[in-house]
C-alpha cells in the first residue's frame, strides 16, 4: 500500500484521523474516537507497524489511553492508564504528552499534576518516573493557566528534556532516572526574580536529530511592559540553546510578539524553525491576523507566512501541540485552532489552505507519513 499522510487531531470532542495521499490534495476524515471526550495528547508512532495513540481525558470518569493499530480506523483502550500509587496522594487530572521512547515499544507520558510515566509495552502498563515526579522541586511548582502539567517530552538518546508549566525545563542525562533543572537564560514574568532556577512557564521545546545540542523553546513571553518587581522582561519568550539546554538565549528579535505556544523545527533543516506569535492578553495572533513566522537562520531573523490565511477578524488560539510538520521532501505545516479549523501550509508554510473548517476546538495535531 502506498504511503499516506496521517494526521491525528485531538479535539474537545474526541480524536479524529485525517488521511491523504502524499500529494496532499485532499484528506478524508475518520472519527471522532473517544466520542465527546477531550484529547490533549496524540502520537503517530511509526516505529515498526504504525500505531496511533490518543489521551482520552474525561473530566467525569478519568483518563484513558486509546491506541489504534490500523492507522486510525479503530481505537481501543490500552490495558491500563498512568495512575499514581494509592499512597502517593495525587490523582491524575489530565494527560498532556505522549512520546516515543528509546525501545521499540517504549512510551513516555506527561500528565497533570506534573509527573512523568513510562511504558515498555506500548501503553499496556505504566510506571511512575520518580526522578522527576518525586523531584525535590515537584511540590514547589505552581499551576499555570492550563494546570500544573508536564506537557513536553523531547527524547534525545540518553537525554530526556521535559517542559513543565510552571516548573521550567528539566533534563535527564541518564535515560530518565534523574533530572535537574536547566533554565539558565530562561526568563519568568510572574515572579519577582526574572531568571529563577526553576518555575518558568515553558510552553514548548523542540529539537532536531541533525543538530546535537540544539533546542528551541517557546516560553511564556509577553512581559516587555511589566512594571512590577524585577522590571520589564522583553524577548524572554522565544529561545535557543546550543548546549543541550544548559544555557538559553533569546531569538525573539524580529517577531511581532514573543508570546505563543507551539514551536516546530523543519524536518530536514535544523536552522529552520516556526512559531506562531500570539498576544498575551487575547491568546490570538496580533491584530486578529493569523500568521506563522519562520526563521531560516536559527532564529537570527524572521519572515511572516500568511498567504491564504485570514487577513483580519480571527481570534483563535493555536495551543502548544496544535502545530506540526510532515517529513515529505517539501514538507507541509499544519495547525489546528481553538475554533476548529485545520490549516495546511504547503512548501513549509508558503501557502495556506483550510482542510477542515468546523471541527471541535483543536488541542493537538500530529502528522506522520505511514
Amino acid at each position: 500500500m502506498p504511503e499516506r499522510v496521517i494526521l491525528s487531531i485531538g479535539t474537545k470532542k474526541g480524536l479524529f484521523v485525517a488521511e491523504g495521499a502524499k500529494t496532499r490534495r485532499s484528506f478524508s476524515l475518520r472519527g471522532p474516537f473517544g466520542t465527546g471526550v477531550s484529547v490533549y495528547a496524540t502520537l503517530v508512532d511509526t516505529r515498526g507497524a504504525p500505531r496511533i495513540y490518543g489521551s482520552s481525558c474525561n473530566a467525569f470518569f478519568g483518563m484513558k489511553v486509546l491506541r489504534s493499530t490500523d492507522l486510525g480506523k479503530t481505537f481501543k483502550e490500552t490495558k491500563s492508564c498512568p495512575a499514581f500509587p494509592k499512597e502517593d496522594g495525587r490523582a491524575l487530572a489530565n494527560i498532556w504528552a505522549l512520546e516515543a521512547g528509546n525501545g521499540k515499544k517504549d512510551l513516555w507520558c506527561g500528565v497533570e499534576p506534573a509527573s512523568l510515566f513510562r511504558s515498555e509495552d506500548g501503553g499496556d502498563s505504566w510506571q511512575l518516573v520518580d526522578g522527576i515526579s518525586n523531584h525535590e522541586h515537584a511540590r514547589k511548582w505552581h499551576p499555570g493557566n492550563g494546570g500544573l502539567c508536564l506537557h513536553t517530552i523531547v527524547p534525545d538518546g540518553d537525554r530526556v528534556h521535559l517542559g513543565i508549566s510552571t516548573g521550567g525545563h528539566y533534563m535527564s542525562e541518564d535515560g530518565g532516572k534523574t533530572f535537574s533543572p536547566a533554565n539558565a537564560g530562561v526568563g519568568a514574568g510572574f515572579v519577582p526574580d526574572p531568571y529563577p532556577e526553576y518555575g518558568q512557564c515553558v510552553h514548548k521545546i523542540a529539537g532536531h536529530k541533525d543538530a546535537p545540542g540544539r533546542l528551541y523553546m517557546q516560553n511564556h513571553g509577553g512581559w516587555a511592559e511589566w512594571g512590577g518587581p524585577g522590571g520589564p522582561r522583553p524577548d524572554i519568550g522565544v529561545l535557543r540553546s546550543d548546549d543541550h539546554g544548559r544555557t538559553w538565549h533569546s531569538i525573539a528579535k524580529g517577531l511581532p510578539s514573543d508570546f505563543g505556544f507551539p514551536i516546530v523545527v523543519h524536518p530536514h533543516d535544523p536552522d529552520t524553525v516556526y512559531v506562531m506569535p500570539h498576544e498575551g492578553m487575547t491568546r490570538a495572533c496580533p491584530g486578529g491576523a493569523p500568521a506563522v513566522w519562520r526563521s531560516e537562520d536559527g532564529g537570527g531573523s524572521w519572515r511572516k507566512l500568511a498567504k491564504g490565511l485570514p487577513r483580519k477578524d480571527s481570534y483563535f488560539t493555536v495551543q502548544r501541540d496544535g502545530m506540526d510538520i510532515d517529513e515529505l521532501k517539501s514538507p507541509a505545516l499544519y495547525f489546528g485552532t481553538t475554533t476548529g479549523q485545520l490549516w495546511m501550509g504547503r512548501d513549509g508554510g508558503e501557502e495556506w489552505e483550510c482542510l477542515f473548517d468546523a471541527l471541535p476546538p483543536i488541542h493537538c495535531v500530529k502528522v506522520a507519513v505511514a
Partner: protein
Amino acid sequence: MPQVTVFVPAPLRAYSGGAAELRLDARSVRRALEELERSHPGLYRSVCDETGAVRRHVNLFVNELHMRERDGLDTALAPGDKLTILPAVSGG
C-alpha cells in the same frame, strides 16, 4: 450481608459487560465500591480516582439521597437498597 443493586449509567456500561444493573453484597457504600474494585475494576476506576476518592464529577445516590446527605462513604446499606452512579450535570 445485604444484597444491593448498583445502577450503572450508559457511558460506563462498557465496564459492566453492558449491564445496567449489578447486584452485590455490601454493608456500606465504601464496601460496595471495594466490591466493584474487585469485580469490575474498569468501572471502579471510572468512579474513584487512584487515591480512592469518588471523582469530583461523579455522584452516588443511595436510593433517593446523595450519599453526602447521609454518611458519605460510610452510609449503611440495607437489603434491597439501590446505589446509583450518575455523572454530575454539566452544560447550559
